């Protein structure tokens, strides 16, 4: 760690891990309910578990992104954060808004709009919180000694993410329009501006871990985020095939979302090539595992599995089925969860001074969580295909089909257990690093 104020990142990461743990618990509640064991129905019905599960994901990833920004921006801008005190205010208010939202979901205090269940009144608090965060990051960046491409791309991603959130707050009487603009947030986040954030973090990590020249890495970063937007923006059309808007989206969405895997492929090739090219090998092997893992798994989960049901002819049958959950899990895991775990693995030893670069526990965490998640994805996929075939093709009753898929959720739960053990090992590693300290300030092997 080079600047004292980078320590604030630790607490964002800690919050992130706490929420991630909770997210997994709610996932289990849903998995068991799907397998036929809904003993918690009276206290936590499925729709509550679902809203909590997906919103916790969003909040822990955002907290992780914010932590990443608080760690990366001072180092890139070569100055302390403008106000550490305000960063802590932002952290605490983020945690409070998150807790109110999550608790509220248990008492029917929500807005049933997939992924954006936070009620409007709380939305305003989210906006204030994010403005404070952006203010701190952008002022630090512009007061800094240098403005690197990595820092600009990361900040741009965070800024656009905040702007796009506003389109999800527009009120509509029509379910179609509501849905249409909800995707401006959800799709343009995950298949657009969040990839800027991911790209920025990835580029920072590659510069640190491989020792390849910054100019080379940042040039390719532009190409990759360029490809992402070129395919991803009009690729939003794949959400518009069958929700009541013009047929033009079948063509536009079909063509551009077919190009989306290319952006992810480019990202994976970029990471692997930079690693191969790098002559200086950083001793933090675990960070390297997670970094390369994120680039590769996101290509499989977001790129390939997304493509599996993105063409209009296929999506006509898979739209609104468990096939979506199959793609969603591996995509979020690879692209966003793993990049957050990567930046944590890289920065923790630097903030705490405990250089736990390589351990059996750390490697087990990586492999068990990844194998578990791939197993879960396969289970979702099989259940999804069964559902599509029986319900959409053979026109069987919904619940008859659901009975047929119960066994796949048993498999899912087994794989999820493996995944969870991996994540618990990661948490133990996190804990073993101890707290951040100024004693860790030093000239790091960069």
């Amino acid at each position: 760690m080079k600047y004292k104020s980078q320590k604030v990142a630790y607490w964002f990461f800690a919050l992130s891990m706490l929420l991630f743990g909770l997210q997994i618990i709610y996932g289990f509640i849903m998995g068991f309910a799907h397998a036929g064991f809904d003993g918690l129905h009276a206290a936590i019905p499925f729709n509550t578990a679902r809203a909590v599960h997906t919103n916790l994901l969003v909040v822990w990833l955002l907290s992780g992104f914010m932590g990443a920004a608080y760690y990366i921006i001072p180092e890139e801008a070569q100055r302390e954060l403008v106000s550490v005190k305000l960063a802590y205010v932002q952290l605490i208010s983020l945690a409070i808004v998150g807790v109110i939202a999550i608790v509220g979901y248990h008492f029917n205090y929500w807005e049933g709009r997939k992924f954006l269940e936070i009620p409007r009144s709380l939305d305003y608090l989210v906006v204030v919180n994010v403005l404070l965060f952006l203010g701190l990051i952008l002022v630090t960046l512009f007061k800094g000694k240098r403005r690197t491409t990595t820092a600009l791309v990361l900040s741009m991603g965070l800024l656009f993410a905040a702007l796009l959130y506003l389109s999800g707050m527009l009120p509509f009487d029509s379910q179609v329009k509501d849905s249409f603009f909800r995707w401006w947030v959800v799709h343009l986040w995950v298949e657009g501006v969040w990839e800027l954030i991911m790209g920025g973090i990835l580029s920072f990590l590659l510069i640190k871990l491989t020792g390849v020249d910054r100019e080379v890495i940042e040039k390719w970063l532009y190409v990759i985020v360029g490809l992402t937007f070129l395919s991803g923006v009009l690729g939003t059309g794949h959400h518009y095939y069958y929700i009541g808007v013009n047929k033009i989206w079948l063509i536009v969405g079909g063509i551009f979302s077919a190009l989306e895997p290319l952006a992810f492929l480019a990202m994976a090739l970029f990471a692997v090539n930079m690693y191969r090219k790098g002559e200086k090998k950083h001793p933090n092997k675990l960070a390297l595992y997670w970094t390369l893992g994120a680039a590769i798994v996101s290509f499989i989960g977001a790129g390939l599995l997304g493509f599996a049901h993105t063409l209009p002819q296929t999506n006509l049958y898979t739209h609104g089925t468990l096939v979506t959950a199959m793609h969603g899990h591996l995509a979020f895991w690879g692209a966003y969860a793993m990049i957050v775990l990567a930046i944590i693995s890289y920065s923790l030893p630097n903030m705490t001074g405990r250089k736990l670069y390589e351990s059996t526990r750390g490697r087990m965490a990586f492999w068990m969580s990844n194998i578990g998640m791939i197993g879960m994805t396969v289970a979702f996929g099989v259940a999804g295909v069964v559902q599509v075939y029986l319900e959409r093709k053979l026109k069987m009753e919904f619940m008859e089909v659901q009975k047929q898929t119960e066994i796949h959720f048993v498999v899912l739960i087994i794989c999820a257990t493996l995944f969870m053990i991996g994540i618990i090992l990661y948490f133990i590693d996190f804990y073993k690093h101890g707290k951040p300290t100024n004693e860790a300030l030093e000239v790091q092997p960069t």
Partner: protein
Amino acid sequence: MLSKKQARAFFLGGTVVTFLIFIGLTIYSFSKSQDQSNDENITEAVVRGKKLWEDNNCMGCHTILGEGAYYAPELTKVIERRGEGYIKAVLTTPVDWAPNGRKMVAYGFTAEEAADLIAFFDWIDDIDLNGFDTVVSPLAKGEN
């Protein structure tokens, strides 16, 4: 070989152009002549129904227009499949509705609220869904 400046121009140029096309297409698909979202038939009951739909996070279990969770049935064309009487019974019952063992929260809606939700479903059913309705509707049996 590509320079960093060219790479940046590709990124900025590509982004601006695709965003402009995207906004253009959005305006086009909601323009009067192209709109197929059944906008003109939204009544006050439909709006109230949509609010109930959101306030109770029905999408947390069901899907509508193919969007939501996958724990309970798709509700596009539900009136055609089940009839109003059945839907009203499900919405107003004070005990958990549990077809084949899977429970739905007993919302115990009033008759007016149930009527609003039915108006909402009815409005949904008249949207032109580019063929998706035939996949989830019984009228399409045997066609696929």
